[in-house]
Every structure is written in C-alpha cells, then in structure tokens.
C-alpha cells in the first residue's frame, strides 16, 4: 500500500481520539500521538486496536511499545503486513 494511502487510513483511525485539531490538520510522519495530537494514553490502546482491525494484523506488545508516532505506526503496519 502507498504511504499516502496508509497515512489517510491512519488519520481516519486517530481522528475520534484527537484533542488538538490543529496538530491533526498538520499531521506528518513526525507527529506524536500523545505529545502533538494530545490523545490520552488510555485511548492510545484504542488506536492500536483500531489499526489491528483496519489492517487485519496483530500488534504484539513489543511493537505496541514503539507506537507513539505516525512514523512508528506506519513502520509497524508495514512490518506486520509483510509477515502475513
């Protein structure tokens, strides 16, 4: 899947949990879910679960621990898709 398409899918997933709309509009690969988008940490697990559902992958604990930024999320999704 193309990176832009993946970022769009990811944006759709995180949108309901975002508490900083301006940062969301300006989202880039470097965007941090908690620091920039102000997603609360309990909702970060919802993002992880939604990503699993959307891409039909399983994100193990070791991967989840890195999932703090858009870039890390993309890397994890790509890695898990490649393993399928």
């Amino acid at each position: 899947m193309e990176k832009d398409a993946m970022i769009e899918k990811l944006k759709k997933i995180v949108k309901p949990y975002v508490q900083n709309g301006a940062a969301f509009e300006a989202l880039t690969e470097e965007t941090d879910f908690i620091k920039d988008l102000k997603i609360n940490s309990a909702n970060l697990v919802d993002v992880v679960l939604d990503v699993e559902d959307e891409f039909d992958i399983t994100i193990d604990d070791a991967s989840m621990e890195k999932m703090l930024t858009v870039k890390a999320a993309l890397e994890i999704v790509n890695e898990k898709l490649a393993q399928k």
Partner: protein
Amino acid sequence: MIGNDIVDLQVAKKESNWQRRGFLDKLFTNEEQELIKFSSDPFQMVWLLWTMKESAYKACLHQNYNRIFSPKSIKINLISKCKATVIIHNTMFYTQSEIKEELIHTIASSQKEADIILTDFFKLNNTAYEAQAS
C-alpha cells in the same frame, strides 16, 4: 520521584470502552485482569489500576525515562483497596489512591516513608490533556 494521575470517571465512561475486545489484554497483566474480573465494580477497578500505572510512569518520565507505550510491563501489586506497589523499569513505586464518586486520583512515590498527602484538589474545569499532564 513523584507522579500523579487523575481520571474523571464520567469522561472515562464516555471516551473509553474497557469492555472492548482486546482492551484489557493490551493494558493489564493476567493478575491485574483477575482483579478486574472478580471486582464488585470492574469499571472502577480498571481506572484505579490505570491511574496506578500512569502515576508511576509519569514519575519515571521525570527521570528522563524513555517514553514507551508498554502498560503491561508496569506491574501492580495491590496491598489494599487504595494502596499498591508498582514496579516499572526495575524501580518500585508506592502508590496511594483516592476514589471518589466522580474521579480517581493516584500519587506514586519512590519513597515509602514519604507521607503521600492526597490534598484536596479542585476538579479541573479543563479536562483536556494539558490540564491533566502537569
């Protein structure tokens, strides 16, 4: 090292579904999930345990602990309803919680002797992340 976390239970009810498939598995160890399962108020137990983990994590962040999202590696040993020891990154914290009808507040301290004083605090008008994060 001290950390602090507050969960507004009305907000938690609205913004999180703890009964969602996979939710507890990703956040809590098997032992912690047992505590939730056998609690008379599982919803309250979820957020009590969560504030314990968060307060210890925040205490570690003050020590330049690398940010990671690994709630299960933070392990809680409940001593009483409102007291626990929490181990994170090989460091032990002592937590003390206050459970009110509308919120749960937990303070974590690396020092056992330090009397953790849960002072009366005002309910934040702004429940946004910034207000809670300080």
